[in-house]
């Protein structure tokens, strides 16, 4: 390119403006939780064997990438093995990673490892599963998820759509899991005595396994001719089980649960032939990890810590009012992505290698 003399100052001025604007944009895009100090970040998963975890991992990486002070993002998967979870925590710290976000699937068993790494000067943020201990003593901060809030949201919807009471079935994961207990507390705080649970207390055990869910649901449908609402804390595991209603020549009842693309598409295909099939979902909570990453990065880089340490899953779909969203289905993408997550649907599909 051959620039003549009068044009040169103009070109230089334009280039300077572009650089200044880009720098200003970059500064504005840097979130407040991202401080100036450089750090390495790691996400330590207790169990990584499902699409939810894969998308959560990708969400954590996406969130960390917003902060230029984070120089690397590592991941480890304990594969449900407590001993490996403990060794992952210690080895990640030994490798010089300064900020650890830990999904403590093993519960309090990993607390001693977290405490020793925290006392060695690292930033430790366990999230979603309670590991015991105290913030500032055993770890930097615990970032929880309000499952009780989910229960309340579900209860409010049920109350609105079944004002005269309802017969409900509540399905959760393994026996004794605290998530189900908290959700039940949330439900009971909203619903009165004319709302009855048909399942054995506190919930039907499904292990979040689609095959077991199918067997449990078959038994419950057969036993109870009048189920108004099914409440489940893992919506996609219902998809295989709901066709059981056809075998009994009954309409699928209202479903109150967490979102999933396969569930949304199932509703689209079947709601016309099942007059009672209404759907209400809360976000499945992949973005819980973003709050945990923000806390860890803020503490490690000297940024501003978030206002809260409790993630509240927002309401996502409501087939009755269409607010905040109507039921969503992306039939061109895999069933096991979560359209409620901040991460784009296409990026999620890529994250689960499909």
């Amino acid at each position: 390119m051959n620039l003549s003399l009068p044009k040169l100052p103009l070109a230089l001025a334009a280039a300077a403006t572009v650089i200044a604007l880009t720098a200003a944009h970059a500064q504005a895009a840097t979130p407040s939780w991202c401080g100036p100090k450089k750090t390495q970040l790691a996400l330590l998963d207790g169990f990584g064997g499902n699409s939810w975890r894969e998308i959560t991992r990708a969400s954590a990486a996406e969130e960390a990438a917003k902060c230029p002070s984070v120089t690397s993002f590592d991941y480890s998967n304990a594969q449900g093995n407590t001993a490996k979870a403990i060794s992952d925590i210690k080895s990640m710290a030994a490798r010089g990673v300064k900020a650890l976000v830990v999904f403590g699937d093993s519960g309090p068993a990993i607390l001693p490892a977290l405490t020793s790494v925290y006392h060695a000067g690292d930033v430790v943020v366990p999230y979603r599963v309670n590991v015991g201990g105290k913030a500032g003593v055993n770890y930097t901060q615990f970032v929880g998820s309000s499952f009780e809030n989910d229960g309340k949201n579900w209860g409010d919807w049920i109350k609105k759509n079944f004002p005269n009471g309802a017969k409900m079935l509540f399905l959760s994961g393994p026996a004794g899991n605290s998530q189900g207990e908290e959700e039940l507390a949330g439900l009971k705080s909203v619903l009165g005595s004319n709302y009855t649970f048909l399942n054995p207390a506190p919930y039907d055990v499904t292990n979040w396994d689609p095959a077991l869910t199918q067997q449990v649901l078959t038994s419950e449908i057969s036993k109870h001719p009048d189920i108004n609402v099914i409440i489940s804390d893992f919506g996609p595991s219902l998809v295989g089980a709901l066709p059981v209603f056809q075998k009994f020549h009954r309409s699928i009842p209202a479903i109150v649960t967490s979102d999933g693309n396969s569930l949304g598409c199932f509703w689209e295909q079947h709601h016309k032939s099942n007059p009672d099939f209404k759907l209400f979902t809360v976000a499945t909570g992949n973005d819980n990890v973003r709050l945990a990453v923000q806390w860890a990065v803020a503490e490690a880089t000297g940024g501003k810590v978030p206002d809260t340490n409790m993630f509240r899953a927002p309401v996502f779909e409501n087939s009755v009012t269409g607010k905040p969203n109507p039921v969503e289905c992306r039939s061109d993408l895999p069933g096991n992505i979560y359209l409620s997550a901040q991460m784009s649907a296409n990026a999620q599909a890529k994250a689960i290698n499909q």
Partner: protein
Amino acid sequence: MVCATAVLFVVCFVFAPSSVATGALAGSLPFAAILAIVGLGQMLVVQQGGFDLSVAGGVSLAVVIATHLPAGHDSALLPAVVAAFVCTALAGACNGLMVGFLRLNAIVATIGTNALLYGAIFAISGGVPEATTNLLAAIATDSVFGLENTVWFALLILLLVLFVVKKTVIGRRFELIGANPLAARAMGLKVRRHQAMAYVFAQLLYCVAGILLAGITAQPTAYQGDSLLLPSVAVVVLAGTSLLGGRGYPVSTVIAALFLNQLSQFALAVGVPYSAQTIIQALALGFGIAVYSLRWPARPLQINKSKDPEERDELVAS
């Protein structure tokens, strides 16, 4: 086993009628069918005095291959099914080689193979579930004469196993080798080859079960076979097949699968807490196994009562 199952159904009819309603049976029978197929595979191995702990890996691998390779496209289902059979047959051959020819302990060898299979499952799926293709769902769940195809598959496999084991030369040799390998060797039969083949055919049956399981579960997990390991052994023992090897009871194995399935449906239908459900199942299982396994002390008592040592020796000899 037939009597126990009949009694169970009568108990269900009286105390938990919902568990024997048409819809409930239609919903739960496919799972009994899956367990029956897996149980028949385990029976072949137990007949040779072995144990196959790679059930979970075999079933899960078939599930993962049948769902991940087609990735929702019906046209890719057939190659995926072929691939599943090839992979599980290789796993069975691996077990057979280690147990039949290298004489390794069956429990140790099959645990090792199971770990290898889980490695393959992770490599294919990354542990992430994939939705079933529509074609596979239709093959597994469409009904003929009111029964889902999965149930018909189980009955077909039962007939096949029954015919091969009880009516063919190779089947009769197979049972003889299981009952007394030393005598079979003395007769010139190829003991090791038969023992090894038991593991291959067992894995092929696990593969069928896995593919059908992928069909009846819309979005199966990558570890769908895990929950089948203990029931697979339980149905074989309940059916009366000796853990030391020998005669197998295919029909009883299938009925035992029906029994176990109905038992869990009964426990669910009664509506007791989860802890009580597992206790009911354990008690019924323990009772069932005790009926077959306990050696009632009738003859030893007669011997003890006999005062004359010569008479006692005669009794022992008889």
